[in-house]
Each structure stands twice: as C-alpha cells, then as structure tokens.
C-alpha cells in the first residue's frame, strides 16, 4: 500500500529525538570495544613492515613461551579457500582474497598486512608476544602508483592474475585485473560534430573512510562449537557469513550481535579481526577481544579507491554536448575489486549525451585492499567529469550551471549504462540551485564559487523486520540492519505512522542474527528504503490482526473494521455502533482473542530510486599559504520523501564534509619502501568543525513511487560533487585549475607559483 500523499503522513516528515541518542550522548552506548566477558583474552595482530615480500618462515616459539600467551595463529590455522567470487557489501569479492587479506599466506602485499595474531591475558602481553614473533621475509619490489602498476614491467602482485575483459585472453599475468567498458552512439561522429573539444587528465588520492570508532570485536566459541560474535560492522549477517566461510564452519553455529557502530561509511562492509578472534577463541575456549589502534586502521583496512581520470568532451558552441569519453584507472589495493564499474556508470549519468564511451581499469598495487566509501567509485569519476565540464563552460563562455541545465538528463533519456531514466530529479536540483540565494551572494577578492553535480544509484535488497505489540499497547520494531545513520528512528517513524500511535511508543532495536530473518548489510543507501519497506509491511500485518481482534471483541466481520489514529473503528453505520477500540485495549485482551500480536516480514526490495545532487561552494584562497577556506556551501538533493528530515540533512552534511576532506587534505603518504608515513589523524588531516561552515541543505522531495512513503536513499550522493565543486571554486577565485587531489596548501601554493603567483 502507498502512503505517499502527505495527507496520510502525520509522523513521517517529523523530527523526533533519536531513540539511541541519550545513550550515545551520555556515553552509555555499547560500541564494539565496550564488550567485556569473564575470562576474556586480548588479541593483537602482528603486521608486515614490508609493502611486498615473500614469507619464508614465521617463528612463533618465543611468543608462545611468554607467560600469559594462550594462543598464536598464522596462515596455517585457516583453511585454504579456493578462488570463488561472490558479490558482497560494496562489490565483487573473492573469498580466497578475503581470507588472505585477513591473514597473509605466502606473500605480504602491503605495509600492515596481517601475518600472525596472538591472544593473551592482557593487551600488553599480547603486544609483547607480537614483538617476539619473528618473520623471515624475502623482500620484493613494490608498486604504489596506479599507472606505474599498469606498466608491463611493473612488479607483479599475483602471478595468476590475468586481465579480464580483453580479447584475446592474455597469456601474461598483469596488475590490471579487469577492463570494463560502456558505449553509446557513435563516439567518433559525436566528436566530429563538436565545435569545441576539450581533453584533460585528473587524479584523486585513495582516502580513508575515517570512521571515529576503530574496528573491534569480541568472539566467544564454546566447546560444542557454538559461537557468539559481538562486533562493530555494517552487517552482522555479513560478519556471520564471512567468518563461517573463512573458517569452514556452519552458519548455524554462529550468532552475530551488532554493537553500536561509530561510523562505517562503507569501510565496515568487510571483516578483518573477527576470523582471527574466532580462531583463537576456538583454540583457547575463552572469549577473545580485539580492538584496532588508529594506526592499524590506516595500515590494515580498506581505504576508498583513488583514481586517474582522463576526460574528453565535445560540444556545440551553444553548449550542447555531442560526445563524451573517459578512461578511468582505479586503485584496487592488494586484491582485485575496485569500484571501477560504478565509477564508469556514474561518470556521465547526469547528462543527456548522444555519444559516449567510458573505459575502466581495475588495478592492484601494494596498498591495503580498498573498501567501499559512500557512493563507491562515483566521486572519483565525477571529480574528473565535473571539473572538465567547468573547463568546457569557461572555454565556451557559458555559465557552468546553465551548461549543466542544458544537458541535464531527464525522464526518458537513456543512460550510458543502459537504463532509460524514470522519475528522476536531476533537473530539479539544478533548477533549485540556480534559484538559491547563495548564487546571488557577492564575492570578494580571492573568493570564488564552484558548482558540481553527482549521481548515485541507491539499492534495495534483502531486509527483514518484525513488529511486536506489547501488552500495554506500545510496540517493538526489530530489524536485521545495523543502525549507522539513524535508521532506528526512521523505522520507528514508519511503524508509528502505520499503527497510528506516537513514535515514542515504538521501540526500535537491531536484532541479532538468530532473532530475525536474513538481512543484507547496511550500505548502498538501502536501509530506509528496503528495511523501511519490511517494517511498513510488518506494521500493516499487525494492523490487519488488530482489526481482526477488534472484530472478535465486537462480534462483527473483520471487513467491517477500519483502523485510524491508533484505534479500531466500525467501518460504517452498517457495521454497528461501537466506541472505538484503542490499540492498548486490544493489546490487553490479546491473550483472550488469539494470543500475542506480532508479525515479521522479509523482503527483497526493488525499485530504489536514484539520487541526484547539485552543490554550490564558495571558497577564499590565501595565495600566500595556499590555504582554502570554505566560506559557504549549499547542497541540493533529490531525497524522495524525507522520513526524518534531520537525519537526511545530517547525511548530506556528513557526505559534503567528507568530500571537502577528500578535496583539500586527505591522502596516504608512502615512503620509498612503500611504508605508510601518516597513519594517524595528526598527519592524515580530516576536516574538523572549524574547517567547514554550516552546510545548507535543500531537500528536493521527488517521491519514489516504489516505496510506501516515497523514500530514496540519501547517504551516498552527497559525497559525489564536493571535490569538483571545491576545485571549480578555487579556479573561479584565483584562476588556478587544480587537476590533482588533494588541493592541500603546499600543492596549491606550488600551483600558484607555477601560474606566476
């Protein structure tokens, strides 16, 4: 059933206090590192100091002999996993690679790669034991840069990696794992038709998701094999499945419990510590707790991919695009699986271009395996395309927003990757940006304004939700998707709307893997859409049951009962004359009318509406230092229907802030030996509160007809436009075009010097 019409919405669109808020602001919420158990051991990881080396031997005798050490594990404690591809959190994953990423087998492939782990009675003893483990390495040449890694003579990471997607099938191994391509129309004819052609090369750095909470877990394996995992992740069903796979045990043996999560942004759609803790708990029969340090997070977990983006655009003098081409080279890290596919599909998604071609390369190098990060792949390609579009606008003498408006994709336009757009709100975001007062604000010396747009698909997928009515007429909503961005509040809102009760009378929880049906992880901006659909349907089932119970109490047909404002009402004069029955009264009598009232629904939600955004950014550049101050930022986004507007705004503001960090400061710095030199927040500079102004959000509500309340995913597209918006603003301010990220003070200062000061 649909409730998109706002006349049906009394709770949806309001801003109640989040149900997990008090615990979080008073420090009582239990995050991954807060779990403590009797007899618990502490686990630590021994990590490689080399970017690329063959493991000759691992000597653990001294560590095992240290008093307090209870277990040591190396690759020998994990079953060999055959090469088997599956689609996991953010994209394709090979379980053999996942296993080897958690624990190196024959080679280490990056500085920080795990080679052993220890469980001991204290963290200090575990660390000391790690120091006592001696690993004999044969150090190999390494490669960090993506284009260096693509060269035929580059050091090879995997002898058995042959480029997929090329004809004929290669006979020589390569660091290029895959080539992928999309074409539309006749690209050569499109460029011939153009009055102006522009061709540029851009690059952006791999960056970390920089979640505040490091990875943490506690795993307890009992003597009979039954195992409980508490961990901070974006999907406890994902944790359960991957641990079972990597250790060769039945899924039914594992119960995974979602801890509160202190940020994920895609980076917690993989496992790192859990299989190690599980292996050591099985060895010792005691719970094992593992918590990463910040340095380990940087050295050992997946950043977002960095990329080189080559863009070529052709246009008529009036700004109409006739052709567009891009070549994308994406960092995958140590194992294949960069988000180059989505990067290709997102590159030109905002525009109606008759002739287009995108070619993408997935490239391995001696860096940690990449993980998802908000809209994985899209920010990289969009930074190049949206910067190049700005350069084209400059060349044509056309306002950059007008150029976007002229070429905006609309309903009925066929996207480069195939689908014909339906019910999209891109043009509405451009229109709203154009009319925003921000566009009229005067700018001073060394100040400039940039605009950029972005797209993300959003997904649906498998979700389960249960709705239970308590004896006093309150309700519990249990879901299988961890709450990262306030989803419990949104679930409570949707259930309250259907049940017709105040949202404060609905208690939303995240249930463990043994208490609710399977749910795919929290990612892809899918939870408010997909789990919201399951929650809505579970509440609808409960309402149907409540109507039956009322009918039983009144001794009339269930068809003669309707549900409104949290009460059962006779459907009309023919139904009889009864006082309305509130939910609490029906709940109180549920034992006499058939038993407890509850329902669980599992869905595989389809029809997630795509997300589009257009951002406006004002900067001021200090030409002496190269420092860029963000003066004002406005993010316009098609959000479908905002279930809880504060959290939609929060998602947009968070995505923009992370995008500003990617634009201005964030990067991994490696020394000549391939060792990471800045694995901490002092040297890896994320934006902090004084770095950003209050980010203004404009929610364009173009309801998604495939969701009962019209919701679209909102958490990813906000990170797509900022890099180009900032770069375009810098160029507008001082006439210096930055084509490589980050645009940090030393780099910008050098560019200003090259430009003649």
């Amino acid at each position, binding site marked *: 059933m649909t409730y998109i019409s706002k006349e049906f919405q009394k709770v949806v669109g309001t801003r109640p206090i989040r149900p997990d808020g008090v615990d979080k602001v008073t420090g009582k919420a239990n995050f991954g590192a807060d779990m403590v158990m009797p007899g618990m051991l502490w686990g630590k990881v021994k990590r490689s100091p080399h970017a690329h080396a063959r493991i000759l031997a691992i000597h653990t005798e001294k560590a095992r002999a240290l008093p307090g050490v209870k277990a040591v594990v190396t690759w020998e404690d994990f079953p060999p996993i055959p090469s088997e591809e599956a*689609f996991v959190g953010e994209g394709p994953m090979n379980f053999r690679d996942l296993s080897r990423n958690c624990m190196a087998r024959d080679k280490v492939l990056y500085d920080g790669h795990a080679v052993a782990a220890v469980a001991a009675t204290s963290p200090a003893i575990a660390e000391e034991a790690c120091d006592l483990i001696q690993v004999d390495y044969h150090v190999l040449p390494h490669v960090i840069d993506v284009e260096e890694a693509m060269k035929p003579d580059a050091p090879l990471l995997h002898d058995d990696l042959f480029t997929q997607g090329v004809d004929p099938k290669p006979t020589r191994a390569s660091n290029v794992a895959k080539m992928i391509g999309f074409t539309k129309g006749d690209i050569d004819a499109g460029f011939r038709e153009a009055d102006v052609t522009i061709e540029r090369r851009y690059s952006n750095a791999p960056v970390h998701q920089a979640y505040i909470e490091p990875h943490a877990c506690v795993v307890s394996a009992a003597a009979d094999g039954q195992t409980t995992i508490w961990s901070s992740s974006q999907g406890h069903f994902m944790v359960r499945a991957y641990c079972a796979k990597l250790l060769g045990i039945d899924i039914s043996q594992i119960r995974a419990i979602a801890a509160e999560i202190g940020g994920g942004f895609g980076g917690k759609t993989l496992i790192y510590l859990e299989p190690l803790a599980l292996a050591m708990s099985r060895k010792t029969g005691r719970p094992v707790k593992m918590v990463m340090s910040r340095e380990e997070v940087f050295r050992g977990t997946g950043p977002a991919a960095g990329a080189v983006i080559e863009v070529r655009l052709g246009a008529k003098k009036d700004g109409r695009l006739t052709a567009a081409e891009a070549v994308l080279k994406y960092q995958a890290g140590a194992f294949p699986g960069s988000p180059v596919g989505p990067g290709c599909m997102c590159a030109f998604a905002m525009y109606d271009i008759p002739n287009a071609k995108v070619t993408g390369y997935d490239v391995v190098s001696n860096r940690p395996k990449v993980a*998802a990060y908000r809209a994985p792949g899209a920010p990289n390609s969009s930074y190049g395309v949206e910067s190049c579009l700005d350069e084209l606008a400059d060349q044509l003498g056309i306002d950059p927003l007008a150029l976007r408006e002229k070429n905006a994709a609309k309903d009925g336009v066929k996207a480069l990757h195939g*689908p014909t757009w339906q019910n999209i709100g891109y043009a509405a975001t451009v229109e709203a940006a154009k009319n925003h007062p921000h566009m009229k604000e005067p700018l001073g010396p060394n100040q400039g304004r940039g605009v950029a747009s972005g797209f993300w698909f959003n997904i649906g*997928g498998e979700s389960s939700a249960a709705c239970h009515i308590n004896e006093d007429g309150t309700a519990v909503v249990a879901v299988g998707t961890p709450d990262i961005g306030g989803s419990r509040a949104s679930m409570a809102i949707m259930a309250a709307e259907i049940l017709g009760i105040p949202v404060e009378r609905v208690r939303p929880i995240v249930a463990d893997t043994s208490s609710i049906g399977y749910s795919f992880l929290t990612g*892809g901006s899918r939870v408010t859409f997909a789990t919201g659909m399951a929650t809505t349907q579970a509440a609808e089932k409960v309402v149907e049951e409540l109507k039956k119970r009322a009918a039983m109490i009144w001794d009339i047909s269930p068809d003669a009962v309707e549900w409104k404002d949290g009460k059962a009402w006779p459907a009309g004069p023919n139904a009889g004359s009864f006082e309305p029955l509130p939910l609490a009264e029906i709940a109180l009598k549920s034992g006499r009318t058939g038993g407890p009232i509850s329902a669980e629904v599992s869905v595989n939600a389809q029809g997630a509406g795509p997300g589009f955004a257009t951002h406006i950014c004002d900067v001021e550049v200090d030409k002496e230092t190269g420092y860029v101050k963000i003066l004002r930022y406005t993010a316009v986004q098609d959000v479908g229907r905002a279930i809880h507007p504060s959290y939609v705004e929060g998602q947009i503001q968070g995505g923009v802030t992370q995008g500003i960090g990617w634009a201005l400061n964030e990067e991994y710095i490696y020394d000549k030996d391939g060792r990471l030199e800045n694995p901490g927040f002092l040297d890896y500079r994320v934006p902090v509160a004084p770095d950003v102004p209050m980010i203004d959000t404009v929610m364009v509500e173009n309801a998604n007809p495939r969701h009962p309340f019209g919701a679209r995913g909102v958490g*990813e597209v906000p990170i797509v436009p900022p890099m180009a918006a900032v770069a375009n603003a810098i160029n507008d301010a001082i006439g210096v075009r930055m084509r490589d990220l980050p645009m940090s003070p030393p780099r910008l200062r050098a560019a200003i010097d090259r430009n003649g000061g």
Partner: protein
Amino acid sequence: MPRVVISGQAARRFTGGATELEVEANTFRRLVLELDRRFPGLGRQIDESMAVAIDGEIFQDAYLAQLKPESEIYLIPKIGGG
C-alpha cells in the same frame, strides 16, 4: 520479443561478441534460463555478478520480474554501495 543488451564486456565472452539478443520469455527467470541454454555459463555470471535494468528500472535480483514482449533488458555490473 524482449530484447537483451549486454553492456558489460565481462558477459560478452559468453556470447561470441553479440551484445544485443532477442529472447522469448515472459519472466526474467525464464530469460536467464534461456540465455544459459544458448550460452552455457552466462546464467551463473548473471546470477553472481550482474544487475539488470528492465524497462529502465534497475533490479539487483529480478527472478520474479515480469517481461513484456517489448521489454528492454540491460545486463550491467551489480551495484553495491557504502
């Protein structure tokens, strides 16, 4: 008859280079079965690593999706997210 466009190069290795195919089927499941019969291995490839756009709407899993004679089906890389 529904028209299938295979836009990812990975899938093309199964079809001998053909990127557009006509397949008699009234559900997506039947379409996949028919494609796998014609091009052994393509069905598994679609199941494990591809999403589908049917008449403009992207499905991650579309066995139940109904097809019309004029339906246009694009097979594209599966989409995840952060």
